[in-house]
């Protein structure tokens, strides 16, 4: 029974399963980033139901941690799912993923995975370092190769945040040594903390030109720019096309936003896993890079 692919999805199911195929989709839920992820999983569920596939969306809670991922995979294995789609995010999830694969349950990683290689079927997502570099290029271009750049990172030591930060900073240091970097400072993904940091950065550096927020709460930084009357003088760059962030893109404080095509990641991965289970079709490659869509006020 052929069905139309939902908008934003790119992979179609090859054939219906003879025997019901059960897939567990493990993800988190703590901020708007996850909404399109969930939507993608739900869309895949609807879509695959026509092919004798079941997708159970399992919420791992609102606190992102490797332990939660491990417990989730353990739970899915105990419930004898045929395949698992998971958001591993952290180093330290490789072991349990290997365990699942070794016991015959393929695992598809999405969004972000740790640096340690695992036996997962494939990974679809954005390479954080590459995304950082993409932003770095944008920053250098936008700043004209000089001036002061404030850096606010989510959690010191969080792999994804580190990679996004270093991807950008390594590029900037190499290509535009005249850009002076302030920080990094930690905002623990909090917008209010980003706000205060921008306030203080601007106080100590009246010639501040740009602010790069690697993780949560970029709109707090944008709001500070707005409240300080610096719209047009200081630009904020960050990740994810959430409504809050986009609002400041429209008013001009936010000058660049990179997204991760989360809906597509969720949908495509589930269907590719299904195809592997049903038809033995391997995904096109080990790592399926999702090109980040960088939007700027001009591109709107």
């Amino acid at each position, binding site marked *: 029974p052929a069905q139309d692919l939902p908008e934003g999805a790119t992979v179609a199911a090859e054939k219906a399963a003879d025997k019901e195929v059960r897939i567990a989709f493990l993800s988190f*839920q*703590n*901020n*708007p980033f*996850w*909404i399109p992820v969930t939507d993608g999983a739900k869309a895949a569920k609807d879509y695959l139901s026509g092919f004798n596939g079941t997708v159970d969306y399992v919420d791992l809670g*609102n606190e992102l941690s490797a332990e939660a991922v491990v417990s989730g995979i353990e739970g899915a294995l105990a419930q004898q799912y045929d395949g698992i789609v998971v958001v591993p995010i952290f180093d330290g999830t490789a072991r349990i993923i290997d365990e699942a694969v070794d016991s015959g349950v393929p695992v598809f990683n999405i969004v972000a995975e740790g640096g340690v290689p695992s036996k997962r079927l494939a990974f679809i997502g954005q390479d954080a370092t590459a995304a950082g570099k993409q932003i770095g290029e944008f920053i250098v271009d936008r700043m004209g190769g000089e001036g002061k750049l404030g850096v606010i*990172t989510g959690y*010191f030591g969080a792999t994804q945040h580190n990679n996004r930060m270093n991807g950008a900073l390594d590029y900037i240091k190499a290509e535009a040594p005249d850009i002076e970097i*302030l*920080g*990094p*400072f*930690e905002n*623990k*993904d*909090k*917008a*209010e903390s980003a*706000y*205060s*940091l921008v*306030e*203080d*950065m601007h*106080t*100590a550096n009246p010639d501040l030109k740009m602010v790069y927020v690697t993780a949560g709460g970029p*709109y*707090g930084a944008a*709001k500070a720019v707005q*409240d300080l009357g610096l719209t047009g003088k200081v630009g904020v760059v960050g990740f994810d096309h*959430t*409504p*809050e962030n986009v609002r400041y893109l429209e008013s001009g404080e936010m000058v660049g936003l990179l997204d991760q095509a989360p809906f597509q990641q969720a949908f495509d991965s589930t269907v590719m896993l299904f195809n592997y289970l049903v038809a033995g079709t391997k995904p096109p490659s080990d790592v399926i890079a999702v090109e980040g869509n960088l939007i700027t006020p001009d591109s709107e």
Partner: protein
Amino acid sequence: MTTLAKAGAPALRSLLRHREASVLIMLLAIAVFLAFSNEYFLSSRNLLNVGRQASVVAIVALGQALVIIARGIDLSVGSVIGVSAVVAAVVLQATGIQSLGLLVGLLTGLVCGIANGLMVTRLRINPFIATLGMLSVARGIALLVTGGIPVMFTGWAEFLGAGRIWQIPVSFILMLILALAVHILATRHRLGREIYAIGDNPKAARLAGIDLKKTRLFVFGFCGCLAGLGGVILAGNLASADPNLGMGYELDVIAAVILGGTALNGGRGSIIGVVIGAMLMALLNNAFVLLGISAYWQVVTKGLVIIIAVGIDGLQRREDDE
């Protein structure tokens, strides 16, 4: 007593007898250091920023201080901040009535606080556990109400959170007024006096005719209400009410209270100390940015300053406790 206390003039010595003194000294020491090492530190603009950054923690800490003085603890303040902000924003969005939004924000906080109080007084649940439960329940409600998506929150809340009157942040002014009011409540009002009495010796206070349950209910309700206000200010500052707002605030707030010299086992504490404690925390963050301290050292330094600020006090005191 250390030589420090012995050598000082009588005035200094009498100052040192207050528990908040050592934190004040730490605060001043950092301020003096900053004044010499960064030209912008003493600018009125920077000082006002620090004031604004301290104000939400300080406002919530005012309520927390009363709870702790009455031998309780409220771990739920961070979540109450979140749920109050989103409920206020949702109501505002639905009705468009500014005053209603604000009122509902405060009321949500109050309701959470009263629920804490009832659990402690009626169900006799340990305050730590009761409010730990509320921490989870309130956060969950905030997430459910919004579906996890931040809600726009402008208007009066934005004025409270980000507005300025002659350059002075409104939230800072509000904090000062509230601190004064709570100070008067604590030291001059009958209720405040009874709160101290309950914390000092609950059994004796009860036999002296103080209504323990009513008073405890009041402190929890009041703390919840201030957390609600804190939520409105915080969300207003960002013009957006995020269901995750205020996460982890409880530790900052309790730290401010205890840094300010309030005893965790009740009966003792000053409102001025609480404000000093909150200021110290904000000043530290300011210092990191102004001095450009390297990333990981920021984390280490924060811990050390907290330890030293209280350690000075411990060192100069005799072993009078047990």
